[in-house]
């Protein structure tokens, strides 16, 4: 089984150099994305069969590459298999989407060599069973994605995004390197050896902090998220989908692998850290998303929100595991993993939709879109499914995982530690707030882009996207629905993962009446997606039928109510900024340092009235800008070193030698 997986990864790696040749051929993109489609779907099926049928087998393999005395170790246990499914489901969908999408990109050949290499790197991270292969693949993943972020390097904004991404990726890898260095100090770089060793509690604590920094910067935890909303939208849309939907999950995998698997029993304050980062990440991420006008940037910020939800789930799992309530830990962990899967589905779907809109109109700015539901009805339908799912509305999948997370939060009074007892409900409040904002955010995204009237000529003349893109989007939408109405299947499939990581599983779900899911006990809570779906479908159909049959079924087009202004301009519609204005007024002044400057000319003046809104990214201004300034200052000072004479360099060497000898002597 692992042989199949490794051969598929090798095929992806082999496609990378082929991409250089293929990028010049007219049909090269089709061949390359077709190859990626086959390889990733093979990997997906392999991993899925491994997860479902042989979850406790954990086959491993060692290849004689990498460090000479170590080799490259690979292992396919339940956790790896689950994340392989996530990675390759996303990869398959993105490859399918790209088969049609590459026509809408200018210079699609630039991405071709990096795309398969990027997929291969993500797979190797998940499969790796020693620190060296893990880190090499991790860095390879960063570099290949960086190359795709700057594929449109003529735009200054993309270059800046790429630069910041590269810096943050290096920082993250450095943190992980140090974490593995600490872990390997007593054992070696093989994960099996690390597992068998027993590092002290203090050392494990430092490792957890480092991993939170390293994996967190890749996943986009606040305040390490700064690169994410810049880099994810800059890449071509199918790559954005992979980066947002899949690569952040690989980061989550890194966190879970180290914190739940390699490090011994958790301590309660680890979970405190994770929770205190996860909750604010969720709320801040979605608040940022609400303030944006660029579709892809909204989606990127919303990724930060979802990562916050996932990390909150993981923090809960750590807390309950540390306090010995491992059946609740299993619930929280399963919720987090389910959200990993769900977010990969709907975020990829939404980025595909954004890509389709971008391909049809050339616009990412919502203020220039509108009315696309008439011109791109199929894309609009798929996007609607994605928006509903990510807003966590039943009967789609987003609801299930968030609901399970809240079930775990509601069990927090059982924890003995007072700190956690106080913090977890607060984090729960933040999550609830985030869920509400997410709904508002996606109402805005969908309403402004797809409903109303076109705000520009390009939006008015848009055309439906191609069949491959639509197939990919509808497949993902179908998965969103299936995962929403049959969550029991997915929860049961996650049981071996949860068993390996937290030592317990959620109650068995398949076989309960009516496909209900019962996370704890029937007397406490239960949810039935299928019934909700049937009820919603039935009510909707009945209402529609009743209205159309009993009232008039004629389609009647009439002027909308125009407030007394005839011939209304599309500009008087709700805009993206005006939609989010109430929320900006409530939260903006504190969180974004927002200021509104209204200029009202005197009554007789012909000047237009103006309303200017200033938003500041306080995290950027308060954290990143000072660091950048300090580094700039220091390098200016150190720069002198570059212009010494030879004799002065010799003197430096000499003085250094004498000082070292003095240290030895004294």
């Amino acid at each position: 089984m692992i042989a199949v997986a490794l051969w598929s990864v090798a095929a992806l790696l082999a496609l990378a150099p082929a991409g250089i040749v293929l990028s010049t051929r007219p049909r090269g993109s089709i061949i390359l994305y077709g190859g990626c489609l086959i390889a990733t779907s093979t990997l997906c099926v392999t991993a899925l069969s491994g997860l479902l049928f042989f979850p406790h087998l954990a086959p491993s393999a060692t290849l004689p590459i990498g460090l000479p005395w170590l080799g490259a170790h690979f292992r396919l246990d339940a956790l790896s298999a689950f994340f392989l499914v996530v990675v390759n489901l996303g990869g398959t969908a993105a490859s399918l989407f790209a088969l049609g999408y590459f026509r809408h990109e200018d210079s699609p050949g630039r991405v071709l060599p990096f795309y398969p290499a990027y997929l291969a790197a993500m797979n190797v991270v998940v499969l790796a069973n020693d620190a060296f292969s893990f880190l090499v693949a991790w860095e390879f993943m960063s570099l290949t994605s960086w190359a795709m972020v700057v594929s449109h390097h003529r735009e200054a904004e993309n270059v800046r995004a790429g630069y910041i991404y590269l810096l943050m990726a290096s920082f993250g890898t450095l943190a992980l390197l140090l974490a593995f260095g600490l872990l390997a100090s007593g054992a070696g770089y093989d994960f099996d050896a690390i597992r068998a060793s027993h590092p002290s509690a203090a050392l494990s604590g430092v490792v957890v902090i480092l991993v939170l920094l390293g994996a967190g910067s890749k996943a986009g935890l606040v305040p390490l998220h700064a690169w994410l909303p810049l880099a994810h939208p800059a890449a071509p849309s199918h790559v954005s989908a992979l980066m947002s939907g899949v690569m952040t999950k690989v980061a989550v995998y890194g966190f879970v692998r180290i914190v739940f698997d390699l490090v011994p029993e958790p301590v309660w304050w680890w979970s405190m850290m994770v929770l205190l980062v996860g909750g604010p990440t969720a709320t801040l991420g979605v608040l940022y998303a609400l303030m944006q006008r660029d579709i892809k940037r909204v989606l990127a910020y919303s990724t930060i929100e979802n990562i916050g939800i996932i990390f909150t789930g993981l923090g809960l799992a750590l807390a309950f595991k540390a306090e010995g309530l491992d059946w609740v830990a299993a619930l929280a962990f399963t919720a987090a993993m389910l959200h990993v899967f769900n977010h990969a589905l709907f975020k990829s779907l939404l980025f595909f939709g954004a890509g389709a809109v971008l391909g049809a109109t050339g616009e990412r700015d919502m203020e220039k879109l509108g009315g696309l539901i008439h011109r791109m009805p199929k894309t609009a339908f798929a996007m609607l499914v994605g928006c509903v799912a990510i807003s966590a509305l039943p009967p789609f999948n987003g609801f299930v995982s968030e609901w399970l997370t809240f079930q775990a939060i509601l069990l927090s009074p059982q924890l003995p530690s007072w700190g956690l007892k106080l913090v977890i409900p607060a984090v729960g409040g933040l999550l609830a707030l985030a869920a509400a904002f997410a709904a508002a955010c996606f109402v805005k995204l969908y309403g402004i882009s797809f409903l109303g009237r076109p705000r520009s000529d390009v939006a008015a003349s848009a055309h439906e996207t191609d069949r491959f893109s639509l197939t990919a989007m509808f497949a993902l939408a179908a998965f969103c629905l299936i995962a929403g109405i049959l969550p029991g299947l997915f929860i049961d499939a996650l049981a071996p993962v949860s068993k390996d990581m937290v030592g317990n599983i959620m109650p068995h779900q398949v076989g309960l009446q009516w496909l209900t899911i019962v996370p704890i006990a029937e007397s406490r809570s239960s949810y039935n997606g299928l019934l909700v779906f049937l009820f919603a479908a039935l009510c909707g159909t009945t209402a529609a039928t009743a209205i159309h049959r009993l009232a008039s079924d004629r389609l009647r087009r009439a002027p909308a109510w125009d407030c007394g202004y005839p011939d209304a301009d599309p500009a008087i519609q709700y805009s993206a900024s005006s939609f989010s204005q109430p929320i900006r007024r409530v939260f903006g002044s504190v969180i974004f340092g927002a200021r509104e400057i209204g200029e009202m000319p005197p009554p007789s003046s012909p000047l237009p009235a103006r309303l200017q809104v200033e938003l500041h990214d306080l995290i950027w201004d308060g954290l990143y800008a000072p660091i950048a300034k300090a580094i700039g200052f220091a390098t200016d000072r150190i720069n002198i070193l570059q212009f010494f004479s030879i004799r002065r360099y010799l003197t430096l060497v000499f003085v250094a030698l004498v000082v070292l000898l003095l240290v030895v002597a004294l």
Partner: protein
Amino acid sequence: MSSLQFDIAHLLAGSLVLASFMMLYQDRLYALLNVYVLHAGVLALSVGWQAYVQQAPHLYITALIALVFKAIIIPVALHRIIKRLGIHREIENVIGIGLTMMAGIGLVALSMVVMLRVTPGADALAREDLAFALSVVLLGLLIMVTRRNAVSQVVGFMSLENGLVLAATGAKGMPLVVEISVAFSVLIAFIVIGIFLFRIRERFDSVDVQALDRFRGERR
């Protein structure tokens, strides 16, 4: 080892340090070169004595290499270079001689303290030898740092290398291969530096490294 053998080894190594001190205050290039010949000759004697004492015939070859390359070929070549560059009249002193000598004495004291502290378990000859060798290395570096002329920097570098050879022969059992390779690396370094000297000369009409600084727009 008899006390006389030890004393002679001690004497030769000490003479090497003394020769280093002599190099430190030479302000004429020819004089510097002549002292360097003395330096290399003392090194050859010292290595030869070690060969005799340790009954290690391969050290004779090392001594021979030191004598032929360092005491004859390289100084003669440097003589010719100085003559062709026409810099044999140049006088240079960067820091005052008194200060340089004080620094040199400090360095010797430092290397004694370091070596005696680090190697309490080694046998007496190796200890003394290493202490002297470290002094020679440090004095060689000091020569390089205090000189402005590229030729005298080369000489400083080679006296530094002599210190390394002294250290290597003092410790028993260094294979000949290492010494040959060290000797060749010095030779190659010498050739490369010689070529560079002429290139610098062609471009700047001087082998004073200050000319390079001026070229780079440096203030001093």
